[in-house]
C-alpha cells in the first residue's frame, strides 16, 4: 500500500493542530493563563475564514449564512486571526482578574456560548446544519504534472521550500554536534573512534553538496567538513546560522527543479526522487546525531524491540476471529512491554537514556510499518514488481505515482502550505518569546506581583497574551475550515481544548517547537489506532474508538504525573555560552 499519502494527510492535521497547541502554549506555557475555552477561538477563526471565503450566494442548496465575501484565503486567514484575537482580548477583559480556576471555568463557559450561538442562529452560519462549500485555495489547479507554467511554479515553490528546510535542518544537526559541549564531543570521539569522525564528515559533505555552493557565496562555512574551526564558528553565529545559505540553496534548487521538470519528460520523476531522497538522508543524519553515542548493540536492541511491538500485532492480521486475536495480541504486547520495562530496570544503557531509547523503539516501529509491512501482501502474492513499486512510491513521498504519470497532488501542496505557516509561526513566536516582551510574560507566569512591583502592568501583558494565543487558535481554525471544507458546530466541542492541552503537555509546556512534536505524536497515535480499528467488526468499532480516548486520557495522566514538563521539556534558557 502506498502509505505516503496517509502520512502526508497526517502531517496536514498535525500542522493546524500544532497551531492550536501553539496558541495554548502562549497562554498557558508562557503566561500561565489556563484557557479551557481555547476551542472557542478555534471556532471563531474557522467560521470567520469560512464566511470570508464563501461566495455571496449560498454555494449549495439548504445552506444559509449571513454574508459571503468571496475573498482570497490569505485575507480570510488574516481576518480569522484578527477576529479571534480581538474576541480573545474582549473575553479576557472581564475574566482575567479572576482566580485561575474561575478563569478556566468561565472561559470554558464562554466557548460553550460560542458553540451554542453557532448552533442556534440558523441565519448566521447555517445553524445546526453543516456549512458547506468552503473552497480551499488553488484546488482546481492540482494535481500538476510539471510541464505547465503553473506546475513549474508550484514545483519551484514546494521543492525549494523542502530543500531549504532540509538543508537548514541538516545544518542544525551539524551545529548540534558542535555545540553539544566539548566534553560530549570528546567522549563521543574517544569511544566512537574513526566511525564517528567519518560520519561527521559524511554529513558535512552532504551539507556542502546540499547548499549547492551557496555557503561559499555567503561565507556560511560552518559544518562543511572543515573540522572544529568551522564548527565553532557556526556556534558563534548562534542558532540562526545557515539560514542564509539554506534559503539561497532552496531558491536555486527550486529554480533548477522547475526548469528540469518543465523541459524533460522524466524531469518530475527525477526531481521528486532527488528531493525525497534528500529528505530521507537529512532524517538519517538527524537521527544519527540524536542517537549520540549509540553503537551497534543499541541499534540492534531498539530494532528488536520495535520489531517486537510490530510482531505483537501480527495475530490481528492472520486470525479473523476477534476472540482469538484480541487476547493473543494483548498477551504479546504484554510480553514486549514487560521486556522493555525489564531492560529499562536492569540495563544501564537503557536506564541512562530512556527517552532516546524509547524514541528509537518507536521509530523502528514506524519504519517497519512504513516500508516492509506495506509490501508484505504483494510479496505474499509473489508480485515482486508491485512490491518494488510500492516501496518506491513510499520512498518518493513528494510525488504521487498512482496516476499514469507522476503528479504532485493537492495534499502535498496543502502540507507545504500549512507547514510553511506553522514554520513561520514558530519562528515569529520564537522572536516574541525571546524578546523582552516574552520575558515579561514568563515573569508573569512566575509571579505577577513582582512584575507589578517593577512597574509593568501585568494586566496589559496578559491581555496581549490572550489575544496572540487566541489569534493562533483562529488561524488554526481558518486552516481547518480550508481543510475540512465543511463545518459543523459539533466539531468545536470542548474535547478540542483537551486535545490542545494534551499536545502541549506532550511536547513540553513553554516550548514552542515541542508543540509540533506534540501534534505529530498525537496524530500518529490517532492514525495508528484508526488503522487498528479497521480490524474489528463494525458494530464494536465505535466502542474501540472510545477506548482509544480512554487510553489517551490515561496516558495523559501518567505523563502529567511522571513528566509534567513534557517529552521535550522546557527549552533551557540559560543564555548563550553558559558552559
Amino acid at each position, binding site marked *: 500500500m502506498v502509505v505516503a499519502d496517509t502520512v502526508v494527510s497526517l502531517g496536514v492535521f498535525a500542522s493546524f493542530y500544532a497551531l492550536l497547541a501553539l496558541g495554548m502554549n502562549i497562554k498557558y506555557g508562557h503566561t500561565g493563563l489556563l484557557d479551557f475555552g481555547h476551542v472557542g477561538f478555534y471556532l471563531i477563526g474557522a467560521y470567520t475564514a469560512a464566511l470570508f471565503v464563501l461566495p455571496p450566494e449560498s454555494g449549495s442548496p439548504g445552506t444559509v449564512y449571513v454574508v459571503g465575501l468571496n475573498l482570497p484565503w490569505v485575507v480570510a486567514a488574516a481576518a480569522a486571526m484578527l477576529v479571534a484575537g480581538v474576541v480573545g482580548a474582549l473575553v479576557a477583559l*472581564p475574566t482575567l482578574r479572576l482566580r485561575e480556576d474561575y478563569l478556566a*471555568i468561565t472561559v470554558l*463557559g464562554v466557548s460553550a456560548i460560542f458553540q451554542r450561538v453557532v448552533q*442556534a442562529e440558523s441565519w448566521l452560519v447555517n445553524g445546526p446544519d453543516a456549512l458547506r462549500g468552503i473552497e480551499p485555495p488553488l484546488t482546481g489547479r492540482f494535481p500538476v504534472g510539471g510541464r505547465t507554467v503553473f506546475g513549474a511554479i508550484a514545483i519551484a515553490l514546494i521543492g525549494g521550500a523542502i530543500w531549504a528546510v532540509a538543508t537548514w535542518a541538516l545544518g542544525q544537526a551539524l551545529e548540534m554536534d558542535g555545540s553539544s559541549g566539548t566534553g560530549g564531543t570528546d567522549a563521543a570521539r574517544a569511544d566512537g573512534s574513526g566511525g564517528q569522525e567519518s560520519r561527521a564528515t559524511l554529513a558535512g559533505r552532504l551539507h556542502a553538496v546540499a547548499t549547492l555552493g551557496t555557503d561559499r557565496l555567503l561565507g556560511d562555512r560552518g559544518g562543511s567538513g572543515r573540522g572544529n574551526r568551522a564548527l565553532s564558528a557556526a556556534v558563534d553565529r548562534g542558532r540562526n546560522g545557515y539560514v542564509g545559505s539554506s534559503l539561497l540553496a532552496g531558491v536555486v534548487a527550486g529554480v533548477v527543479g522547475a526548469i528540469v521538470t518543465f523541459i524533460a519528460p522524466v524531469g518530475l520523476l527525477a526531481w521528486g526522487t532527488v528531493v525525497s531522497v534528500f529528505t530521507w538522508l537529512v532524517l538519517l543524519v538527524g537521527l544519527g546525531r540524536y542517537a549520540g553515542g549509540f553503537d551497534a548493540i543499541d541499534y540492534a536492541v531498539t530494532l528488536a524491540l520495535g520489531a517486537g511491538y510490530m510482531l505483537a500485532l501480527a495475530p490481528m492480521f492472520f486470525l479473523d476471529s476477534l476472540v482469538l486475536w484480541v487476547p493473543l495480541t494483548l498477551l504479546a504486547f504484554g510480553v514486549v512491554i514487560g521486556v522493555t520495562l525489564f531492560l529499562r530496570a536492569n540495563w544501564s544503557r537503557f536506564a541512562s537514556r530512556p527517552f532516546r531509547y524509547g524514541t528509537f523503539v518507536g521509530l523502528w516501529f514506524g519504519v517497519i510499518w512504513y516500508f516492509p509491512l506495506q509490501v508484505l501482501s504483494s510479496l505474499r502474492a509473489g508480485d515482486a514488481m508491485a512490491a518494488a513499486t510500492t516501496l518506491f512510491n513510499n520512498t518518493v513521498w513528494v510525488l504521487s505515482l498512482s496516476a499514469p504519470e507522476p503528479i504532485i497532488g493537492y495534499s502535498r501542496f496543502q502540507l507545504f502550505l500549512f507547514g510553511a505557516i506553522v514554520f513561520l509561526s514558530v519562528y515569529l513566536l520564537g522572536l516574541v518569546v525571546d524578546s523582552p516582551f516574552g520575558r515579561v510574560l514568563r515573569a508573569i507566569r512566575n509571579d505577577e506581583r513582582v512584575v507589578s512591583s517593577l512597574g509593568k502592568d501585568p494586566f496589559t501583558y496578559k491581555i496581549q497574551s490572550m489575544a496572540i494565543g487566541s489569534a493562533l487558535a483562529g488561524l488554526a481554525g481558518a486552516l481547518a475550515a480550508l481543510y475540512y471544507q465543511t463545518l459543523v458546530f459539533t466539531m468545536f466541542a470542548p*474535547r478540542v481544548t483537551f486535545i490542545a*492541552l494534551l499536545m502541549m503537555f506532550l511536547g513540553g509546556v513553554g516550548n514552542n517547537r515541542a508543540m509540533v512534536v506534540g501534534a505529530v505524536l498525537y496524530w500518529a497515535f490517532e492514525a495508528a489506532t484508526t488503522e487498528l480499528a479497521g480490524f474489528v467488526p463494525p458494530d464494536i468499532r465505535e466502542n474501540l474508538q472510545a477506548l482509544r480516548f480512554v487510553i489517551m486520557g490515561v496516558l495523559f495522566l501518567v505523563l502529567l504525573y511522571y513528566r509534567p514538563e513534557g517529552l521535550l521539556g522546557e527549552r533551557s534558557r540559560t543564555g548563550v555560552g553558559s558552559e
Partner: protein
Amino acid sequence: MQGKIRVRCTMPPTTALLQAIITGIATGSMIALGAIGLSMVYSIAEVPNFAHGDLLTLGAYTALVVNKPGNVPFLELLTTGTQARTLTGTVVVFLITAVGVLGAVYALGGVDALGGSWWPTNPPAAVGAAVHIAAAAAVGLVVAWGAPSIVVGMIFSGAVVATLAPLQERYVFGKFRQKNVSLALMLVVSLAVAFVLRYGIQTVFGGTARSYAIQPTVDVFGASVNVAVVKFIDLYVMDGGLFLNVTDPVSDGVLFTGSWSWLVVVAILAVSAVVGYAGYRFRRGERAILGPYLLGTIAGLAAFVGLSAVLATGGSVPESSLYATRVRLSILRMFIIVLALGMMGVLHTLLRATKLGKAMRATSDNRELAQIRGIDTERVTMSVWVLAGLFAGIGGVTLGFLFGTLTITMGFFILLPMFAAVILGGITIYGALFGSYIVGLAMEVGIFAIPGLSATYRVPIAFVVLILVLLVKPEGITG
C-alpha cells in the same frame, strides 16, 4: 363593573412568567442534585472536579444494569428479555450492590473502616463488620428484589458510584495532591479524568443513545397518572374566592379540585403565618439541625398545605373569573424538586447533626486547624468523595429519567451550570444550593424574558449571569 375583565375560562392561558419560575425551580433542583457533590469536593477535597458531570453520566448508565440489563454488554448473557434476568443475573446484581456498599465503607479507611472504625463510637471490629455486611446484604436484596424499578436503579447507581468516586481521589487526585501541584494543573488533571470516564462509559455502552424502560403511569388515589407528561394546574381568581383544578391532559382526568372562599384564604394565610412565626420563636437563638428560620418556614408551609387541603371544598370549573392562570408541571419535575429537597435535608442533617458532618465543615474552614484538633482529614476527604459519588449516582439516574434519553455528553452539559452555581455560591456547600436555584431560575426566566431566544441558550444564560456576578464580586456571592 367596568374595570373587571371577565375571562372565559374553560382553558386558562399559561402565565409564562409563573411557568418560567416554576420550571426554573425544577431546573435549579436538577442542578442542585449535582452541584451538592461538586461543591463538597471543591471546598473540602479542593478539587475542581471536571469529571463530576461524567460521574452523573456514569450513574445514569449504571442504572441500566438494573433497569434494562438486556441492553448492557456482558450482562445481556444473563438475561431472558430486555428487563428480565436469569437467576445468575439476579445474583450478579445482588453481588454488585453489596460490594458497592462495602466498597464505599472501605473507602472511608480500609479494612478498619469495615470493622466500624469510622463510627462515632468505636465498636468491636466483629460487630462493625457484621453490621456492614448485613447492611450491604439488605441493600443488595432490596435491589435484586425490586428490579427493574427505576427507584431501585437509583439505589444501585448510588451504591456503585459511591464506591467508584473515591477511587478518583485515591488513584489520581490524591497522588497529585502529594506532589503539591498547582490548582491549574489539578484542573487539567480533572479534565483528563473526565475524558477517561466519559469515553470509558462509551467504550462499554457504545455511542448510541439509551433510555430506561419505565412505566409512565402510576396509580394515584385510584386514578392512573402519567408521570412524564405535564399536568395542568389551573388557578382561578373569582369574586368569591379561589379555585384550583389539576388535570391530566392525556387521560383528561381531574386529579384535584378545590375552592376556597376569600375568608378561608385569609384565615389559612393568617394561621400559617402565626404557625411559622411560632416555629421561629420556639427555636430562636438555637443553631441546631432545625434552626429558627428553617423550622419557621417548614412549620408555616406545612400549616399552609395542610389547612388548604383540609378546608378545600369541591366545585366545578367556574364559567368566568377575574383572572386565571395555568401552570404546566409534570409529576416527574415535582419529584425532582422533592428529591432535591430531600437530599438537601439529608445533607443538612449530616452537616449539622453528625460529628462527621461537623468535621467536614471544619475541614472546609481550615484544614490545618482541623488536623490540630485531631480530625483525620484524609478520612473526611474520602467520605466527601463517597457522598459526592452517592449523590451523583442518584442525580444521574434522575437526569436520565427526566431527559428520557441517556447520552454520553449529558453529564457534561449539566456540568457547566453546576460549576456556575458552585462558583456563584463562592465554593461553599450552602452557597452552591443557593447558586443552583439562582442559575436554574436565571436559565428559565431568561429564556422566557428575552423574546426570540431559543432554548439552546439555557447554558449560555447561566454563564452570562456568572460572568456578570463575577464582574461585581470576583469571589462569588457568599464568598
